[in-house]
Every structure is written in C-alpha cells, then in structure tokens.
C-alpha cells in the first residue's frame, strides 16, 4: 500500500491563514486536517465589562470583509435582550447595509478568489492578463457594494454608524437614489455573472449535507428568521446552543461546530439557496433557472454559481429598498439600561453568525458568545476533503493539491473570523 501526503503550507486565496494536510494510504484517506494556526482573537473576552452599546463596533473589528454581519448580529441580539423592536425604516436600512456587504464580499470571492481555480490561474493577477473584463467587473461590483456600506456605515471597512436601536446617522432619500444607476448596472452585471459561472467546469462531487440557514416567511434571509435545516430543525436563535456545540481539535485555533448528535453541517450560499429558493426575487430565480440551478444543489463546487445568484438577489433587494425608503422619524431609539440576555443569528455572506450577550442592569456585558460561519463550516470542509480526496488518488500531485485547495475555497472560509478559541484544556501526564 502506497502512502501519499498532500500538504499546503499556506493556503492561498482565503481570508486569513491556514494550512492543509491530507494523508492517503492507498485509495483510502487516512487523515485530513485543515490546520488553523492564525492566533486566537479573544474578542468574547474583550467584550466583558464593556457597555452593550460598544458591542457593534468592537465585534465589527473581527472581520474586514464582513464587519456588518458582526454589527447586525450584535444589535439584534442586544435589542432582543432589551425588548426593543426597531422601526420599519431602520429594518430596511439594515437590510440594505447587509446587501452592500454581500455585494462586495461575493464579488471578491467569485472573481478574485474562486474564479482563478476554475480558469487555471494561480491568482487574480495572473488571471487579469487574460480576463481583464472579469477583474474590472469584480472591482466595479466591489466598489458599488463598498459605496452602500460607506454611505450607511460612515466608511467602507469597519463601519461606525450601526447602533443598538438604529443608526447614529441615516441617509436621505436623495443620497440613496444616487446609488440607483450603479446598482442597476450591478444587477445586470450579476445576471451576466450567473451566465458566466454556469459555463465553468465542475467536478462531479455531491454530498448528503445537512443544510442550515435562516428562513423568513416573506423574504430571502438576511437579518431575521428561524433557523431551519433540511433534516427537520426549526428553532429560534434562543435555542441555538441546545442544538449546536463547538469542539476543540488539536490542530486548529478555531473551534469546530457540530449539530449535537449528528455532526457536521453546511452554512452559507448553498444552504440559503436550497432552503429559501422560493423567497428569492424573480430576477434571481430566473437567473438561477437559466443556469440550470434548482434546489437542492449538493455539489459544493457550484457554490460559485449560487453566490452569483445571491449577487442578483442583493442588487435587486437593494434597489427595492431604495425605492421604498423614507427616512425614519428618529435615527436611533434611546434605550435605558437594564439587565438582559439576548441571542440573534444573521446571515453573513459565508453563512449564519450567532451572537449571545448577557449584561447587567448597568448594561455592562457579563458574557458574550460568538460563533462565526467559518467555525460552523470547518468540520464540513474536512468531511468534504475526506470524501473528495478519494477521487484524486490517481491524479498527479500538483493537480490533486490544487483541487483540494479549491474544495476548501468552495466555502469562502474566513479564518480570522473563526479563530475565537476560548476553551483551553491542558492535559498533563503523571510520571
């Protein structure tokens, strides 16, 4: 029996830093480790003793790609603890804010990080020489997403306007209307992106996933909804910790989340699409159907097409919101301090993001818990590799390695978000 190892010391084109180790014994995969060596971040500990109003800005610092996800999960969890319900205009603005993040994040991943895999380039710079129009489209889409974030959040990276109770400052209708021409272009560009992605070559690989995503009765999920799965889960955010647990593995500074009693699960575009297809606006459904995409999509390599469909959704939803928007009477509700515990889940571009806060009568945070989407996908990524690598036994080393890297990038993992390692257990043997 021949043994073979696939090892990638620094995985490229992912957010953050990790390495990949796969050991094969003959046709069997003996070991898979996605090694997360980026150091733990300790954000949950930083939050203790801080006023809850600081949580959106502190947690936004967890990620430069998806800070709004952290802000949204934080404000919703805290508002639930305080019994506050934002007025409809604030709710709309938060959805628009999230659309901006989805546009910039999905455009970055589709074109700059994932496309080079399919087109056979080492990176986007090499790809730009032959596919200039794709890179220019990516940059313009990203700029349009950033424009929404910048207008609503005060700046495009680590925005500062989201607050418990609303926004510190809200845009005028005219400011939002100024975004419309760009968003109309982005919508058309997104539809074209779906068409372009459908022509890519996808490995034949499907898995029987447990898909987990939010579901809302009236809309494609962003900020609200019950947490559902294709295996019968249907829970409120407050029940999250009864159904999921995080495990520490020796090779990772990021915890791995599992469904209690079942194991790994998948969050993100594929899960949202499969569980909420009927809630997509017509433009996004049409784009998906024209690409031959209908739920359930079980091939993770096709996530690039689903991300493109979600780009169509985000642009279409942003345009809808702008047409309906009237500024709120008060940008931010004044909320007196009180003790409370609140949980919320929102849909970050990479999947569900869970926050829980407990604070005292002065509003000071006693405990915080954050489970980012990449932690929720980590075990599933390793499970994919365990299955997928068996298809690559006869492949030359370099190509097999590339394909395994691509299998990781299917998930658009954000390693920096995921390294929120909390449990430290030191085992000491006796002599």
């Amino acid at each position, binding site marked *: 029996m021949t043994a073979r190892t696939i090892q990638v010391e620094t995985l*490229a084109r992912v957010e953050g830093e990790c390495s990949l180790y796969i050991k094969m014994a003959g046709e069997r995969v003996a070991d898979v480790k996605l090694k997360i060596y980026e150091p733990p971040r300790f954000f949950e500990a930083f939050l203790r003793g801080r006023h809850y109003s600081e949580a959106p800005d502190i947690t936004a610092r967890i990620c430069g790609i998806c800070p709004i996800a952290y802000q949204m999960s934080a404000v919703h969890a805290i508002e639930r603890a305080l019994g506050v319900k934002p007025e409809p205009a604030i709710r709309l603005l938060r959805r628009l804010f999230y659309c901006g993040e989805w546009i910039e994040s999905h455009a970055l991943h589709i074109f700059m990080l994932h496309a080079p895999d399919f087109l056979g380039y080492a990176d986007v710079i090499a790809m730009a020489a032959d596919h200039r129009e794709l890179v220019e489209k990516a940059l313009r889409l990203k700029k349009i997403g950033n424009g929404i974030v910048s207008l609503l959040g005060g700046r495009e990276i680590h925005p500062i306007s989201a607050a418990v109770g609303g926004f510190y400052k809200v845009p005028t209708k005219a400011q939002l209307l100024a975004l419309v021409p760009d968003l109309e272009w982005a919508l058309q560009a997104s539809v074209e992106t779906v068409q372009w992605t459908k022509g890519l070559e996808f490995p034949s690989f499907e898995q029987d996933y447990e898909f987990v995503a939010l579901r809302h009765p009236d809309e494609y999920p962003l900020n609200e909804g019950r947490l559902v799965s294709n295996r019968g889960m249907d829970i409120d955010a407050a029940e999250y910790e009864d159904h999921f647990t995080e495990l520490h593995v020796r090779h990772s500074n990021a915890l791995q989340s599992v469904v209690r009693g079942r194991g790994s699960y998948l969050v993100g575009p594929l899960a949202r699409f499969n569980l909420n297809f009927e809630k997509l606006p017509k433009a996004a459904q049409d784009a998906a159907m024209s690409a031959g995409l209908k739920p359930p999509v079980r091939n993770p390599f096709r996530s690039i097409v689903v991300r493109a469909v979600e780009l169509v959704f985000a642009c279409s939803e942003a345009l809808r919101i702008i047409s309906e928007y009237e500024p709120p009477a008060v940008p931010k509700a004044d909320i007196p301090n009180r003790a409370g515990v609140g949980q919320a889940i929102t849909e970050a571009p990479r999947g569900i993001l869970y926050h829980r806060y407990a604070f005292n009568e002065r509003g000071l945070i006693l405990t915080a818990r954050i489970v980012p989407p990449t932690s929720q996908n980590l075990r599933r990524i390793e499970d994919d590799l365990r299955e997928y690598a068996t298809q690559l036994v006869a492949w030359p080393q370099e190509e097999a390695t590339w394909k395994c890297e691509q299998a990781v990038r299917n998930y658009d993992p954000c390693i920096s978000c995921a390294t929120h390692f909390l449990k430290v257990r030191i085992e000491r043997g006796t002599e």
Partner: protein
Amino acid sequence: MLILCCGNPERGDDAAGILVGERLKELSIEAQVCTGEPSALLEHWEGAHDVLLIDAVVTGSTVGTIHVWNASETRLPPQSSESTHGFGVALAIELARKLGSLPERLRVCGIEAGCFDLGAKPSPAVRRAVKDLTDKIAAECGGCRQT
C-alpha cells in the same frame, strides 16, 4: 502630484505612511490617507498621472531606511502572504499593471518598519524617517514651509 499615505496607525511602525500624511497636511500639502485595500487604491489613483504612495515596508534593511521604487517601470518585491489579508499595495500595483490602469508615474516610498504590535508606538527610527521623508516631499512640492 497625488500623494497617497497607507498604513495602520494602531500597529507600531505600520503608522509610518499615515504619519507622513499628517505632517504633510500640517504643511498645507494635500495628502490622502487610505488603508491600502487594493480596490480602494485603484479607485484613489484613477485618472491621476503622477502618484506618490507612502507605506511601511519590510525588506530586511535597517529600521527607518527610506526606500523609493519606480513602480511604473519595475515590480515591487513580492509579498510573502497569499491570503487576502496580505493582498495589499504591491499586489494592487501588479493588478493595475495587468489592467493597464497604472498611473503614468507611480513612485512608492517605503519606510522600513520593525514593529507591528497592536497598540505599539512607532519606533524613534521610523519617526525620524517620517520627518526626513516629509521634508523631502515638501521640498519637491516646492515653496512649502519646511519643518
């Protein structure tokens, strides 16, 4: 000339570019501060013909050394990180080169940095380099008050 100052003021010597920008503003010389995020950089220099970009760099030289590269004509030294977190100035320049959107004249001034610790203050050597570089830029801009 468009002056772009990149860096992170909260990470020790990484503040070098930002500090140069602040000193230039004190001298009434217009300088834009940016994070160095690639798509933002491409946007910043869109339509500009003559760009001076200032950032902290690590090449192995003595901390505080000032480097100047003519990025319009030569590649910058490659970066070590392949993650998006390392997708910074050098890669943005190479991407712009491929896209044909590089300014006609793009010079990169790098101040050799030694410490990137969170919350650390810039080292004395970097502070001296910031002053020297600011003076040189001010002299080039001409007619500006010298420090």
